[in-house]
């Protein structure tokens, strides 16, 4: 096995026990990037020399017996909305030409302090306002979408071009590409991970979180980046926690909610079958399945749009007036049309969100986690605009990918996407686990327990 193939946890153990040096690991990942990048285009920029310098420092620290923790010497890709001092945060947009971040974002500083090594900045759908990331190709089929908006991060992790990555999630932008590329994505509880220094799409819906090869890896990253930072007004002061699940988790007594509405409607049959099979696996591990209803489903898309559209337009107010021609067409039109939304629509969405949060709190008293598909269908061919369901309903690809993700953005509850197999075309399928606010440990426990029943997932192969 080559170093780039190692999970974060496995690489950390090798480094801690001095069987692998950070220099070897970084060199291996950089070599892998050179081989896969011509096919997938996951990165906006790769910082090879800087990464090698940092790896040599990490190696010297390790040689002195000073290991900062499990992220020491581990290569990370950051979605290019996340500020790193002295580096451009392009947001994959021509409007950001010449940008240079004056300081680290809170999460970049946390990763740096934990010993992680920045290997590069990964592509996003422009300003995170989309679900496909058209610059990047799916890790498993270059003719299909990467998913988005954190498409570069998910593809890099799936290909071995980063040991882990960070993404952002406003309506599924961590979970969607994670599911479509067969990796793990965690959208933490709103307020758990500080967003200071991260370019916003929609302040009241934005989250930052890890994209990793395993659930265990996601727990290691979350432990490093969770924490209070008052520079993010949504940041919550919660006690520091080690999120890593027990090595041999027991699901006896865990109540798993299985939605009888919404999450299995207009879902591809192969996706539904794979997720039901994974849920049956949870039951075999001791979990008790509880059928549940999902509240206020008629108002989910309206609330998501009512919050996101005006907030995104507000963020871009100045640039939309000075250089509108520099935006991609799909983003520009949404920003322009957002100018025509009234305050009444926005306030109704904010009030609907209050109602929805309260209703979800009631549902989450009945169960410990909810298990559902992460996305209704696997990665579609690039350029496909719509999907037609068996009852004749036509839905845009973006709407379909957002549909099962946005409830967790509106309510702020944590949501974890875990790979649960492939369809007949070989494309990955993701299961989503949702939990109570700040109950990430429960999600990670359940996800890890499921993962332990499966054989280790291979990296996406080179074409």
């Amino acid at each position, binding site marked *: 096995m080559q170093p780039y193939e190692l999970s974060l946890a496995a690489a950390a153990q090798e480094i801690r026990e001095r069987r692998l040096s950070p220099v070897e690991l970084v060199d291996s990942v950089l070599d892998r990037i050179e081989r896969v990048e011509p096919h997938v285009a996951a990165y906006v920029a790769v910082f090879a020399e800087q990464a090698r310098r940092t790896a040599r420092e990490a190696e010297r620290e390790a040689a002195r017996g000073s290991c900062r923790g499990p992220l020491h010497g581990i290569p990370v890709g950051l979605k290019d909305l996340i500020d790193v001092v002295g580096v451009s945060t392009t947001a994959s947009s021509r409007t950001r030409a010449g940008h240079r971040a004056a300081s680290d974002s809170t999460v970049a*500083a946390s990763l740096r302090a934990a010993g992680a090594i920045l290997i590069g900045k990964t592509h996003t759908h422009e300003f995170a306002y989309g679900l496909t990331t058209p610059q990047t190709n799916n890790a498993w089929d270059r003719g299909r979408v990467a998913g988005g908006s954190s498409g570069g991060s998910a593809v890099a992790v799936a290909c071995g071009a980063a040991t882990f990555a960070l993404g952002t999630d406003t309506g599924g932008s961590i979970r969607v590409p994670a599911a479509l590329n067969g990796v793990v994505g965690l959208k933490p509880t709103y307020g758990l991970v500080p967003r200071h220094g991260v370019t916003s799409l929609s302040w009241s819906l934005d989250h930052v979180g890890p994209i990793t090869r395993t659930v265990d890896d996601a727990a290691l990253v979350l432990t490093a980046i969770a924490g209070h930072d008052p520079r993010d007004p949504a940041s919550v002061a919660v006690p520091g926690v080690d999120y890593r699940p027990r090595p041999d988790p027991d699901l006896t007594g865990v109540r798993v909610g299985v939605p009888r509405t919404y999450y299995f409607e207009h879902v591809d049959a192969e996706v539904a079958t794979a997720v039901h099979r994974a849920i049956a696996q949870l039951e075999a591990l001791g979990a008790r399945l509880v059928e549940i209803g999902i509240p206020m489903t008629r108002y989910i898309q*309206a609330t998501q*749009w009512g919050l996101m559209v005006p907030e995104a337009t507000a963020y871009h107010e100045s640039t939309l007036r000075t250089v509108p021609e520099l935006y991609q067409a799909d983003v520009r039109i949404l920003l322009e049309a957002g100018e025509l*939304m*009234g305050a009444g*629509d926005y306030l109704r969405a904010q*009030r609907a969100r*209050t109602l929805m949060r309260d209703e979800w709190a009631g549902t989450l008293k009945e169960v410990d986690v909810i298990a559902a598909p992460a996305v209704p269908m696997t990665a579609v061919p690039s350029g496909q605009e719509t999907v037609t369901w068996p009852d004749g309903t036509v839905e845009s690809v973006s709407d379909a990918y957002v549909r099962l993700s946005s409830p967790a953005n509106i309510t702020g509850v944590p949501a974890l996407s875990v790979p649960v197999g492939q369809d007949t075309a070989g494309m990955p399928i993701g299961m989503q686990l949702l939990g109570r606010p700040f109950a990430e440990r429960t999600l990670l426990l359940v996800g890890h327990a499921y993962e332990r029943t499966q054989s280790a997932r291979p990296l996406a192969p080179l074409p």
Partner: protein
Amino acid sequence: MSSAGLTPPEAARWAARAGLPLPDDRHCVVAATADHIHSVVGVLRELNFGDTPPAGAFRAEQEKHDAAV
């Protein structure tokens, strides 16, 4: 906004009132997209909110910018 769709000149006028002059070739597409957004968010008018407050929070005390990471 009335339930009838926005005409392109109306979209241009509304955008101008918001401080965004639209080039002529943008009027039709902005009107259509704004109409679609309106049709999606419009269902929230069905809800009886009673005294429900909006979810946005405000704290009177300014945040202290002394974060420790």
